[in-house]
């Protein structure tokens, strides 16, 4: 009796107009987001010395120009050094502090937790401006060291934040287990805690690196002729010339960042960044 309906006629699904409407909206939104970026990538291959459409032809001359115009390469190297150096210092300062703040219930820990995250809320231009006077007063002034210090201030909250989130979500049981099994405090840290919060350290450092690379409001106070970061050089170049070399160096910078994101996605999972 129950098996008598062989191949019942397929009911046609009612189209979901809301889903379609939202879908079109999303596509439009994505176009809006990606269009200017795509335009820059396209222009970077232009053979013209000015920016105009239609492009007269394609060439890689603006990528060659990156290497000819020394400040681009020099500042890219400084930018990378500052980004990686400040992230490393941020780990050194941020991780131990975050490990304590995550587990301590004292009001001092809450206060220090706020301090660790505070630099995120301070407008970069205000921080840069204020720090410039202090660093000048103690003789660091405008220098590579000044860049490194200022970028480290900003790196600390990003690294602390992800480490805090990961460590708070981690039950203390693992460390208790290690401890019962005979691990000392340092053995527990090395063999259990650090491996378990490594994704948080990694993700936070990556954020810190990406933010450092684009932190013009902070960098432009501290750059010298010898050590300037890429955004500062790009800004001053842009204010005097309007040629596709900016497009080429931007594209290169984007490729570096996208590669970093793909690495992050492979090791940590992009979904977990928004879910946190």
């Amino acid at each position, binding site marked *: 009796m129950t098996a008598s309906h062989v191949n019942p006629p397929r009911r046609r699904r009612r189209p979901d107009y809301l889903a379609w409407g939202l879908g079109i909206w999303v596509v439009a939104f994505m176009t809006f987001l990606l269009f200017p970026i795509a335009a820059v990538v396209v222009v970077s291959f232009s053979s013209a010395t000015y920016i105009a459409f239609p492009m007269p032809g394609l060439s890689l001359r603006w990528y060659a120009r990156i290497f000819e115009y020394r400040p681009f390469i020099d500042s890219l190297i400084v930018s990378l050094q500052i980004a990686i150096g400040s992230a490393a210092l941020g780990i050194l300062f941020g991780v131990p502090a975050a490990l304590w703040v995550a587990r301590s219930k004292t009001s001092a820990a809450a206060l220090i937790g706020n301090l660790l995250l505070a630099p995120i809320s301070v407008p970069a231009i205000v921080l840069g401006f204020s720090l410039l006077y202090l660093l000048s007063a103690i003789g660091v002034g405008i220098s590579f060291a000044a860049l490194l210090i200022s970028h480290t201030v900003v790196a600390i909250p990003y690294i602390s934040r992800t480490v805090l989130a990961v460590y708070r979500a981690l*039950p203390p*049981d*693992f460390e*208790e*287990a*290690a*401890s*019962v*099994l*005979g*691990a*000392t405090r340092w*053995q527990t840290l090395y*063999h*259990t805690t650090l*491996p*378990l919060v490594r994704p948080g350290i990694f993700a936070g450092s990556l954020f810190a690196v990406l933010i450092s690379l684009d932190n013009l409001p902070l960098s432009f106070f501290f750059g010298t002729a010898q050590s300037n970061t890429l955004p500062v050089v790009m800004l001053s170049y842009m204010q005097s010339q309007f040629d596709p070399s900016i497009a080429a160096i931007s594209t290169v910078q984007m490729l570096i960042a996208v590669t970093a994101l793909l690495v992050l996605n492979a090791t940590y999972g992009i979904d977990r960044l928004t879910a946190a």
Partner: protein
Amino acid sequence: MVSVPLSLRGISKSFGNVQALKPLSLDVGAGEMIALLGPSGCGKTTTLRSIAGFEQPDTGAIYIGPHDVTELPPNLRDLGMVFQNYSLFPHMSVGENVAFGLKMRGIARADRERRARDLLKLVRLGDFADREIHQLSGGQQQRVALARALVTDPKILLLDEPLGALDKNLRESMQFELREIQRRLGITSILVTHDQEEALTMSDRVAVMSAGEIVQIGAPAEVYEKPVNRFVADFLGTANIFSGSALAPEADGTWRVALSGTEPVEARITTNKALAAGERVTFAVRPERLLIGPPDGPGLTARVRDVVYRGSFLTYELDAAGRTTPLFVYGQTRAPVPVSSAVRLTWEPDCAVLLEGRA
């Protein structure tokens, strides 16, 4: 004085205003498995965590063998522990997890790998050393946790709800397996559980805890058959609670009791406590000890309100004269007594256990 493997001497602990543990003393004999049983918040976990060294008792001392370990950090107490959710390190292989305790003790790699393999064999996971933790089923993880806890030859094994995360069938088979391994190794063990069946099945003695103290401690059969008060009677299985007043002792040591209610019925209970005639008494009878008899026989008049088929047995729910709460009786599944039948309930005097305090 010969020292016992584990001795708790008057330990107590408060968290803020909450007294989690009233001064508690307990001696655990060599090779013995003691279950700490009770509802959440009864202090069983605090007791276990104090033994492990995660909590510092406010008063009292903890002795492992002849040594006072009260002040010792967990890593120096030489314990094995199976955690509630196993807490297997997700970033290590099965073999690395098991060998962890040996590594912390500075044992050479070859030795610890050999020992880890032996332990994995003991828990019947001989070929699993190179697997990742997330590849294991719940039951396998449980075994790895046990192997990891035992690998260092600990003096005491602590088991914190070790089977709580497993489904029912697996839990039952693991109860026997865990018990068997514990007996074979002769390791002194503390089992924390809220599952009465687990406590009864696995342990040599059960300590029933409530509100930060041990209410009753004894062999499983003893605490089940002779609960000292209503809490123990209710927590370990189902109990039918009766109240009444003592009438007179019989020659065989039992007492005749008049049950409270509209229809006075006489019953007999066993007690070694000195009762006075006319004293109010509360006693419990387990559902499997109540006997259903024909309506014209002796005993308490009752009517069958409901019969629930439970597979291997039946549960009768009965309304008895003069009672507001129903009585429960377990019966054979063959030839059930139909709903609405009038019946009489009786019990053997030694199945009625006098409880402390009022009902």
